[in-house]
């Protein structure tokens, strides 16, 4: 089953490039550490999900970048020819008919520029483009929408497009990949844009997969040892994490057939209740290529770190982990548990998915993740915890583990954003005139605040 990817805004497009590069490079990587037949099955599965083949044998990925100027093309019409150095991979390219040309971005206005004004204006063209891609798929697994939360195009148009997809393809799943902005300034009105985007997406999307700029930045600095970190570096780490989640895995324990419905399976495992839609990713190991040559890993070691990363809400191994955080005793009554967890800064999960790739993957022991103390009381570990495996190694890492978690990972960042946006709103409605100019009203802001306060409260009381 195939996934149609929609990339929106400068952020979405820059990330999309890295993601497809990572997926392609990995699937054609000669160091899969498995049999040739296995490798071919892996490649075929990856191709089925994300790429469509052109007549000349090149792969075309299903995407819709908007606006095209964010890809640094001088003219959108000659996009396929004016391929800037970044896009020089001869084996895959973007057909220019897939570009939706918007002359300008939406200048950080989430709801006016993108949602209320430009969205509707371009609705038909956008939906037509998407329709074309959907028709190319033998069977549609769903949509993967890559966008930022802080800017204008990605956030506003993203919310709009997701809503339209909900209307038009109500049976298909939608997962939004959202970039959480840096705490300190990329965009001054980022908190407003974020709350507007999140509240709209909460109503129309099925799952929100979040990457925080601050967290990925730290990984680049501390683990990858990059001195002058660029957005390209950040996007590569991000793409690596996404790749380790979306690349094929076996469908049933022990079998060699690959899973056919990535989005559906993810949702089924991780989003049991519509009130809890926010997913975070953790990945281990992550290091620079130089260090990789000198490192060896055991499953026990990797999983121990990953588990601690989960319960202490760390973003990365070694440097960031707080080993003092431990799960409380499971004998405690449910009522006391939540407040005690808060005190201990313990991260409670609703559902977790661990994905293991590499050598001797069947020998890995995941008992630590099945401890009921990790989870809320209303879901038993047998339902809350799942594991996917494949023997095929991912992207030069002999062994790697990824964790996709629906837990309190994002509670604090969400709370912070809502708090800051509220402060700005309450201070004489600063910047609100910029939004009301385009048809948005204070009521809409208040609705967004209310919805998100509800989400915060729900996660808090796990």
């Amino acid at each position: 089953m195939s996934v149609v990817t929609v990339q929106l805004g400068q952020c979405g497009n820059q990330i999309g490039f890295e993601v497809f590069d990572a997926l392609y490079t990995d699937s054609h990587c000669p160091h899969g550490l498995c049999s040739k037949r296995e490798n071919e099955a892996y490649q075929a599965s990856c191709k089925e999900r994300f790429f469509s083949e052109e007549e000349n044998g090149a792969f075309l990925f299903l995407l819709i970048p908007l606006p095209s100027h964010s890809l640094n093309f001088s003219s959108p019409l000659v996009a396929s020819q004016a391929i800037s150095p970044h896009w020089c991979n001869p084996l895959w390219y973007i057909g220019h008919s897939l570009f939706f040309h918007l002359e300008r971005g939406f200048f950080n206005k989430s709801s006016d520029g993108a949602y209320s004004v430009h969205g509707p204006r371009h609705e038909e063209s956008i939906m037509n483009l998407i329709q074309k891609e959907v028709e190319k798929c033998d069977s549609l697994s769903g949509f993967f929408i890559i966008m930022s939360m802080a800017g204008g195009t990605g956030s506003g148009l993203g919310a709009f497009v997701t809503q339209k997809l909900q209307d038009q393809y109500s049976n298909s799943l939608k997962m939004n990949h959202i970039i959480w902005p840096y705490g300190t300034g990329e965009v001054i009105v980022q908190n407003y844009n974020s709350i507007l985007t999140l509240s709209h997406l909460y109503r129309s999307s099925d799952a929100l997969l979040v990457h925080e700029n601050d967290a990925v930045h730290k990984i680049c600095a501390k683990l990858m040892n990059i001195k002058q970190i660029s957005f390209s570096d950040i996007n590569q780490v991000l793409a690596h994490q996404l790749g380790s989640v979306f690349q094929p895995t076996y469908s049933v324990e022990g079998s060699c057939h690959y899973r056919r419905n990535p989005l559906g399976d993810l949702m089924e495992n991780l989003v049991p209740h519509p009130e809890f839609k926010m997913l975070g990713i953790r990945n281990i190991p992550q290091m620079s290529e130089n260090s990789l040559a000198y490192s060896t890993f055991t499953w026990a070691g990797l999983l121990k770190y990953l588990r601690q990363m989960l319960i202490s809400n760390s973003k990365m191994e070694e440097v960031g982990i707080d080993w003092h955080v431990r799960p409380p005793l499971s004998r405690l009554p449910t009522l006391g548990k939540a407040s005690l967890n808060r005190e201990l800064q313990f991260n409670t999960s609703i559902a977790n998915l661990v994905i293991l790739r590499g050598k001797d993957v069947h020998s890995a022991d995941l008992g630590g993740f099945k401890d009921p103390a990790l989870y809320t009381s209303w879901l038993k570990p047998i339902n809350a915890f799942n594991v996917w495996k494949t023997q095929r190694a991912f992207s030069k890492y002999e062994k790697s583990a990824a964790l996709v978690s629906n837990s309190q990972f994002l509670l604090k960042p969400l709370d912070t954003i809502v708090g800051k946006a509220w402060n700005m709103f309450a201070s004489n409605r600063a910047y609100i005139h910029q939004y009301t100019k385009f048809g948005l009203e204070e009521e809409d802001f208040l609705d967004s605040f209310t919805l998100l306060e509800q989400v915060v409260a729900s996660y808090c009381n796990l």
Partner: protein
Amino acid sequence: MEEGVVNEILQGPLRDVFDSKQLITDISGSGNNWAVGHKVFGSLYQEQILEKLRKSAEHCDCLQCFFIIHSMGGGTGSGLGTFLLKMLKDEFPDVYRFVTSVYPSGEDDVITSPYNSILAMKELNEHADCVLPIDNQSLFDIISKIDLMVNSGKLGTTIKPKSLVTSSAGAVKKRHQKPFDAMNNIVANLLLNLTSSARFEGSLNMDLNEISMNLVPFPQLHYLVSSLTPLYTLADVNIPTRRLDQMFSDAFSKDHQLIRADPKHSLYLACALMVRGNVQVSDLRRNIERLKPSLQFVSWNQEGWKTSLCSVPPVGHSHSLLALANNTCVKPTFMELRERFMRLYKKKAHLHHYLQIEGMEESCFMEALSSLSGLIEEYNQLDATKSMPVEDFPRLSVAM
């Protein structure tokens, strides 16, 4: 307007850049009289101007904004310029209006400049989306500084002879021939850097409308203090980190501001940093963290930073930074202007030149004055919050 000035440009080295169909001239200027510029030329040329604007606008695939470049102290720029502003607002309400205004400095050769400026300010208050005030004295100080460095040989071999700035610094030596060219060059650089992200690629683009969106929290407060660094070039292409950080520090020093202002000691409402060249997001963030503690931001916008990265550096430099600050340090400029206005107005000096123009009455002056006073009062109120403790507003509570 003034034929003489326009002709000079048409004979200069850039004559091919200007389309003669887009020029409107009249024989004389406005005689330093805002009323002549605004009311007389305004009504006389309204149709013509509108016609040409519409034609030009039609050529655009997507019109993003208008740039109005003028002075405040004269007659045409000030009067007709602000008339134009109102016209643009009526005719193209969705298109942003950016105004680069040169404010009269202390020693100014136009006696009636306070009148002209205050009358123009009212229009800017009401019809501009964003104003970048500039004053001649600051530009002159900056040129003198560059001059000093070039002459003293302090930077010696590190200055590239062909850079945009030093070639104009050379012009300062020929001071008596073209006195304003060097100063105007700085303003030109300001506009270049402002639009660079919209013209070139970068990892974090910023369109012009994002400037207004992020830097103008309340419609009235749309005056942005600008500063440019570096003012001289460095021959070394791989700038060691220390030098790069110096560029950021300089942007906040009062010597680099394009008006007489000291943002570091006043209150910031918002700040934008537009970087060009080989600078990455980590350099940007490091410098923001470093400089943040020494700057005061308004309580509800403690992280009021807007940033953009453009990969293409300006000619002759390896990177540059333009900082735009919405800061209460513009207040003294306005207060000074008001004072100079009052000195003339109390004596009713030169007033008759204005009042004899049809449509001008004393009430125009009073309205303009109260508009400016209102603006100053808003800045005063913000300044008053400077030393108040930061309190969070109580959040909405939801039933569980």
